[in-house]
């Protein structure tokens, strides 16, 4: 009888003890691990605007100054005139243009007919395409120019109208409140930072058409700037 009882009790005690010890040990480990890890912040990186490699301190400083002067930081985009631009960037025209060289893949050059500021179909599509290709950029620059034919005053007005044509199309097409906050207009007339013919190799709205120094300056240079300003 004694052996029979032992034969019954011993396996039963084992059935309780072995899983009990195992489970207690695992729970103890989990408790320790939990205590060591809490409170846990996410290990994932935080969502942020883009910061590309070309965003050097110098470039960012200039973009900030231009953006601030042109009303992009904290106010509705109002646009800058040529005098404003040359004053705030404190750069020569060539140096100003060099700022945009790293953005070659981002920039689209919208071309206009001589003495005109209306967007053609190719221009409208290029504007929409550039806007949609925003990525993580913070500012959308529209830098418009005019070729040197005509008076300085007339060309200043013409380049302003060209920049505003881009803004008008964006506003009409996308009805996006960000447009007012993030689109900066800079019209340079014929006075500042004229483009050289080698910009004809960039993405133009009139691909395939002839392009020289005059054609490339009847344009608006548009791009998102991938810098956290």
């Amino acid at each position, binding site marked *: 009888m004694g052996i029979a009882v032992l034969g*019954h009790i011993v*396996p039963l005690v084992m059935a309780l003890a072995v899983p009990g010890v195992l*489970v207690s040990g695992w*729970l103890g480990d989990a408790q320790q691990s*939990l205590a060591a890890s809490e*409170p846990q912040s996410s290990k994932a990186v*935080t*969502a942020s605007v883009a910061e590309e490699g070309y965003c050097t301190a110098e470039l960012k400083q200039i973009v900030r100054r231009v953006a601030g002067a042109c009303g992009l930081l904290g106010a509705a985009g109002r646009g800058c005139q040529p005098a404003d631009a040359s004053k705030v960037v404190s750069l020569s025209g060539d140096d100003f243009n060099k700022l945009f060289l790293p953005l070659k893949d981002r920039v689209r050059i919208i071309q206009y007919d001589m003495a005109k500021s209306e967007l053609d179909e190719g221009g409208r599509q290029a504007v929409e395409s550039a*806007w949609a290709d925003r990525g993580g950029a913070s500012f959308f620059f529209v830098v418009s120019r005019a070729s040197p034919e005509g008076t300085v005053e007339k060309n200043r007005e013409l380049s302003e109208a060209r920049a505003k044509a881009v803004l008008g199309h964006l506003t009409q097409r996308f009805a996006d409140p960000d447009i007012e906050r993030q689109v900066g207009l800079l019209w340079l007339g014929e006075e500042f930072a004229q483009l050289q013919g080698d910009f004809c190799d960039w993405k133009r709205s009139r691909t395939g058409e002839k392009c020289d120094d005059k054609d490339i300056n009847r344009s608006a240079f548009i791009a998102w700037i991938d810098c956290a300003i």
Partner: protein
Amino acid sequence: MEEKEPEPGSGGVELRESDRIRSEPRDTDVVPVRRGSMPFDERPAPPPARKRGAMWPWLVALAALLGCFYAAASTQSFITWLDGQEHAISCSVLPGAEGAIGATGCRTAMLSPYSSVFRTSLWGGIPVALPALAVFAFLAAFAMYLGLKRDTNRRDTGFLLLGTLLPVGVSVAFAVISATKLGEFCSTCIGIYSASAACFILALVAHLRALPAPVGTPRPWGRWLLWFLEGVAVVGVLVGLYIASVPSERVSVTRGCGQLVKQDDEAKVLLPLGAKDGGFKAIAVLDPLCPACRAFDRRLHASELDQRLDIDVLLFPLDSKCNWMVKSSLHPGACVVSEAILCAPESTQKVLDYAFAEQERLLELGRTNEAALKADLEQRFPEVKGCVGSAAAKAKVNKSLRWAVANALPVMTPQLFVEGTRVCDEDTDLGLEYTLTQMFSRLGGSIANRN
């Protein structure tokens, strides 16, 4: 402890003729053989009879120990996840195989709402593998007892056979759930199913091979009840031990993991998933081609806690085609699917359900042929035709991503915000039901006060 019973075949009790007729034929290895023709009194005592079918309870014990092994592996995997960290999960029918990190059938099963019970009262709930471990341990112990017992008969093995029906029944139920609800089978679970089946078959053989119960003796109801209570006690003690020792203080549940700082949605990128009047406002950050998001969606739906949430979806495709925050496309094609959803906000639920249901195929299309993915979506949802791929659709996806930037969200999916509070990542799987229940109870008061 037990009723005293005659020991058939032991020579201690002489069977009546009527009993012999009703008894089944005996195996040759247990029937004492009369030797020669010596007078009965002069014959030497027969050798001690070997117990009939004595090995079968031991085989049942072995099968039950195998069940213990798999149930213990599942329990251990579950418990290691209680710390909220990512761990390897043992998912092999081969004992000793290394655990796996990432998507496996065992991970799907373990993170599903079917892996544990009482999930709203206890973080993670009580893993079903734990009572399974206790039941197998009891069956192993009981089978060993029968193997050791000298007078085991069919009344004993009958109880063992009945006991093995429990893991068999539960295994069948869970196999059906795996096939119909999860769509995947967990290798460790298959080990448990197999051990359950083996226990039952071997217990059946043990029962058939056991000595018949002595005729005329009453059924031992008292003994059966005692054994049953012993089994219940083993399960109860183990579960009680678990409840008493499981980590219960969780800062993540009480504090959450951050707040939304900019909840307004002027760009209309938060897509309602069928408003639930009076539900808690929630925002789910999802990638339509993210397997973890699909699993999260299923968990939330299966828990029925989605019925208490008024959920808006924020699309956050982890695809570098549109998301500058990821360097490579974790889920290729997610940008296109997100465009489709944003093109037809009224069809959000339909498109999202489709993307989750067809996720593997859509991911493959996204990886190999994005135009075909677009065509597939346009054919399935004509309302998005002409919109997917357009500048407006791309701009909308960009706005959705910028909403995440404005709120400095972690670059990951899924995420859940309830009334602006972020549910910690570690609380979105095993602890989802507990965490949300706690949040509801806390927010219930604050919302009532606010109103």
